[in-house]
């Protein structure tokens, strides 16, 4: 268990950390997902030792390092805009950490050459940072952090400043760092795609606190709060009243009764993923409990997918492939049927009654 934070609190200007508890395992790629302003950067900087927490503890390999200065922690940091020292060439940038440790120059040269080789930047060693592309700068920044063999590597939005192609490529390279070097990586991001393609485990952060921790697919399939659901791309979120009826458990959303599996009563929020909504021309005969007649209001085409906004008393967004949309001959203004399972409806308790019932909910 290399890194653990226990009950971290920190206030810095408008940003806050509130009771942050995290455990990072050996050689793990851990993603922290959250919107801008959630306190992700402060969390990283507190772990790195740039800020000291107002309260709480940071434990690295069983040692309490809360009061240690950054330079003794052996935790590497790579910022979104890399922060390569502009007055040094790439080789000097990478060797900076070993120079601070007072290593002899032949050793620095060799270690720099090795890490440059590993990251494929040997040809850049004599260049100055301002002549490098974004992807190259990032590799240099990672090399600079890895050359001192840190226990943990912290990555602050490492892919946000890159173009789409470089981002995809770097994502693969980043994913290889733990297995290649044995270093655990904490990567903060506001891009859901990073979570899908990179994380072993992950945490979702909002308002300075961790709202959910788990494997990426758990977070997708079983978001614990409406915020996590919305942030992981759930398009359809409603407020309704959960109750019993002669047809079983339902959530009344405006004029529409939605069958759902839930133990909550009273005011709730519920969400339906767009991909769980099935479109048809005639009512489907299936075990799915929710079949609604709807009018197509708007169709957005994106790549090979069609996002279809329908009105069935409430506004829902579904998604299907462009091919099946043409097969079904769906057009704006048409009347269609939409079908989704009761188990596809995720129900979250509303703020007021969350505490009482949270533990019993399974979605």
């Amino acid at each position, binding site marked *: 268990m290399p890194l653990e934070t226990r009950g971290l609190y920190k206030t810095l200007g408008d940003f806050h950390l509130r009771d942050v508890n995290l455990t990072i395992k050996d050689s793990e790629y851990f993603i922290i997902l959250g919107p801008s302003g959630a306190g992700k950067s402060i969390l990283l*900087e507190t772990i*790195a*030792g*740039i800020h000291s927490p107002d309260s709480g503890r940071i434990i690295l390999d069983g040692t309490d390092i809360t009061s240690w*200065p*950054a*330079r*003794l*922690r052996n*935790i*590497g*940091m790579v*910022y979104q*805009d890399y*922060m390569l*020292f*502009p*007055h040094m060439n790439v080789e000097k940038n990478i060797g*900076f*950490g070993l120079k*601070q*440790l007072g290593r002899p120059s032949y050793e620095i040269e060799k270690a720099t050459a090795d890490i440059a080789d590993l990251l494929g930047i040997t040809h850049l060693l004599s260049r100055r940072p301002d002549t490098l592309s974004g992807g190259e700068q990032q590799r240099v920044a990672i090399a*600079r*952090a890895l050359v*001192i063999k840190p226990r943990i590597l912290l990555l602050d939005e490492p892919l946000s400043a890159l173009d789409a192609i470089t981002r995809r490529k770097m994502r693969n390279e980043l994913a290889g760092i733990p297995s290649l070097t044995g270093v655990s990586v904490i990567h903060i991001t506001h891009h859901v795609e990073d979570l899908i393609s990179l994380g072993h485990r992950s945490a979702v952060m909002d308002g300075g606190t961790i709202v959910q921790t788990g494997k990426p697919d758990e977070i997708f399939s079983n978001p614990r709060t409406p915020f996590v659901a919305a942030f992981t791309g759930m398009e359809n979120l409603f407020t309704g009243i959960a109750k019993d009826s002669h047809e079983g458990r339902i959530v009344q959303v405006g004029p529409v009764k939605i069958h759902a599996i839930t133990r909550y009563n009273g005011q709730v929020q519920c969400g339906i993923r767009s991909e769980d909504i099935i479109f048809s021309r005639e009512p489907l005969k299936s075990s799915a409990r929710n079949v609604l007649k709807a009018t197509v209001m708007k169709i957005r085409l994106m790549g090979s997918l069609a996002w279809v906004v329908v009105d069935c008393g409430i506004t829902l967004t579904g998604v299907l492939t462009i091919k099946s949309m043409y097969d079904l001959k769906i057009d704006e203004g048409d009347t269609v049927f939409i079908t989704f399972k009761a188990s596809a409806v995720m129900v979250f308790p509303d703020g007021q009654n969350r505490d009482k019932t949270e533990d019993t909910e399974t979605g």
Partner: protein
Amino acid sequence: MQNLKACTGSWFKSLLVLLSGVLILFFCLVFGGLVLWPDPQSLVSALTSEEILFSIQLSLFTAVTSTLLCATVALPVAYALSRYTFPAKEFMGLVISLPLSLPPLVAGIALLIFFGPSFFGDLLRLIGVDIVYTTAAIIVAQFFVNVPYLIRVMRSAFDSVHPRYEHVARTLGASEPAVFFQVSLPMSRQALLAGLTITWSKAMGEFGAVLMLAGATRMKTETLPIALFLNLSTGDLDFAIASATILLAISVGTLLVFEYWFGSKRMV
């Protein structure tokens, strides 16, 4: 109508450009007239006279010394003001900037009282230090007037170095002095060179504060501006103009250095 508008526009532009031209012409006539006033032979002999050579040497020595002193003090103070929060920081910033807006004469007389008849001056004389009317006084006066300026320049230079560079350096094992000497200071090198150039040039030309604290003694505390003042009051116009010419040349030189080395990043 459109034609008239275009016509009005160009008429207005011409007037502004003409006005600028007249001003430039006036400047050139004034400065050119100064240099060309004495006949060249007497200007050269004044420039090579013992008195002017002494002034040049004294000015160079005091200005270089006071500039180095300024750097020694301004760098740490500017870094502290830029990076750290501590009690009364705002107030300190104000006090440090005060000599900037103060007439140098006032700074000079304040220094004279401080090092002269005040308790502190008595104390210094007790241990055998009496700087009033000496070369040391010239250096102290130049330092006092110029150090706030250099602090300003360096503070804004340090402010423009993103703290994240320093954060990264710390995570890479750099101690606080290492962060300063290997990251913050080299990243502010441009501003430092520019600031030192201007500080030196201002020190070469400092008159009011030097006059008050060091006096105007021929061949003793006679820097170039003092030489100008002394020779003008005794009617030796050639000598006065000789030192003025040198000061003018230094200003032109500084300006050129500034425009061509640091032209893209004007910070003062």
